[in-house]
């Protein structure tokens, strides 16, 4: 099981346990982060589950689809390490992943 370290919008960090096969968005939601809106429920139709991924892990994630790339453009807070958490599948390979919840748009 992967341990994921999450930094919320106030800068507080805590760790949560990921479940194999679930998305990072589902994991954050289950982990109790109020800030993750995930309005579209994870079907990549909005950009309300935006996170910054620790650069060391960017390459371990499944590549970004064109749609995800386009949706991230909707955010005023996009950075090179931006991802939509609903598009990241949690697996043991992500053990130790650090993510920061991006500011609200």
């Amino acid at each position: 099981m992967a341990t994921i370290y999450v930094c919320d919008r106030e800068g507080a960090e805590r760790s949560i346990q990921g479940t194999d096969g679930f998305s990072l968005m589902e994991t954050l939601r289950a982990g109790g982060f109020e800030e993750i809106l995930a309005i579209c429920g994870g079907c990549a139709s909005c950009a309300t589950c935006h996170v910054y991924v620790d650069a060391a892990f960017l390459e371990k994630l499944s590549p970004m689809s064109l749609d995800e790339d386009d949706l991230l453009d909707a955010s005023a807070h996009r950075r090179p390490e931006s991802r939509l958490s609903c598009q990241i599948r949690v697996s043991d390979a992500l053990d130790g992943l650090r993510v920061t919840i991006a500011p609200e748009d």
Partner: protein
Amino acid sequence: MTDVYDVVIVGSGHAGAQVALALLQRKFAGSIAILTEEHVLPYERPPLSKEYLTREKPLDRILIRPAAFWAERGVSFRHGFRVVALDPEARRVICASGERVGYGALVWAAGGRPRMLPDLPAPLANVHVLRNVEDADRLMAGLEAAQRVAIVGAGYIGLEVAAAGAVLGKAVTVVEAADRVLARVSGPALSRFLVEEHRARGVDIRLSATLAGIEAGAGRVTALRLSDGARIACDCLIVGIGVAPAVAPLLAAGARGGNGVWVDPFCRTTLPDVFAVGDCALHANPFADGREIRLESVQNATDMAKVAARTLMGDPAPCEEVPWFWSNQYDLRLQSVGLVAGHDTEILRGRPEDRSFSVLYLRDGRLCAADCVNAVKDYVAARRLVAGGTRLDPARLADAATPLKEMIPAAAVC
């Protein structure tokens, strides 16, 4: 003894749940209770006509937050609680069982109930609506036993259920009174495209078709009769003809309203410390030219909930978010922004036969809405263009080779 909470939320849909989430996020220190007719914790509704219906996602994967989340934060739930009356003087709501709950502030997020066919004889076992998870569970059981599925109404619910039915291998017929699908919310180009897509998947869509009668036997619908004489035999009937807002107790208590309960831009009703959010809230919408409308969408539920939470906590900011919406049917991702009403020009951008295109709606040269099919780039840019309200060149908009993004005024690009 009457239980009293600082904030009482009526309804546990997206709007009700989000009010509680927004209060928690803002470190609200008071007590919060959610009174709901439902017997389960808040869940996402959109999958009910999509992945939940096709059994790709179970209930625990569509819960807005897990049980432990609400419990740890002390949010109280009263399930099976139907509010039938409101006493604004005594600040309490009264449940169908007679139980009373007192409030410091009340947030009405009760949504609505699906409209039923007016001349349906008696309750029939195989007639369905789709609004909550109980409806969905009943429909799933009904679909399992059915081969021929009839759907009345070609709005989003009707079309999404038609797509799910076709994917499940059912013979689906959709009956729509208007001369096109999605007539209330979209332009004709999108309607034409969707009809062709559904027909290509074997869905029988009957437009300009009015119901003349319903044949029933042994407590079940057996066929629909249309006014043109057609007879559509079915084992299962789904009625998707809109939602009636659940606001009767508020109106009876003297709140202004009619088609929904009226709220100001801060989600306040005309009753003291009574707020309303989501599908049931009638509000003057800046993207509808200030007309008073209700919006039935997750986006509207979420944004109004955030506004109500801010007002409640003494940090008010008016609701002025651009409306947006999505629908998934087959492999089509439809994303809409703005409101289709009062436009004078409709521009097709891209080719529907490529299954990736957008329909742009303009008024006085300004983009007021866009429907984007498998065209996320257009959708993202259209959101900025609708919000920005600048004058645009129709010829450039129609040129799919020029990114819409390039038409966003420099100051608006982030």
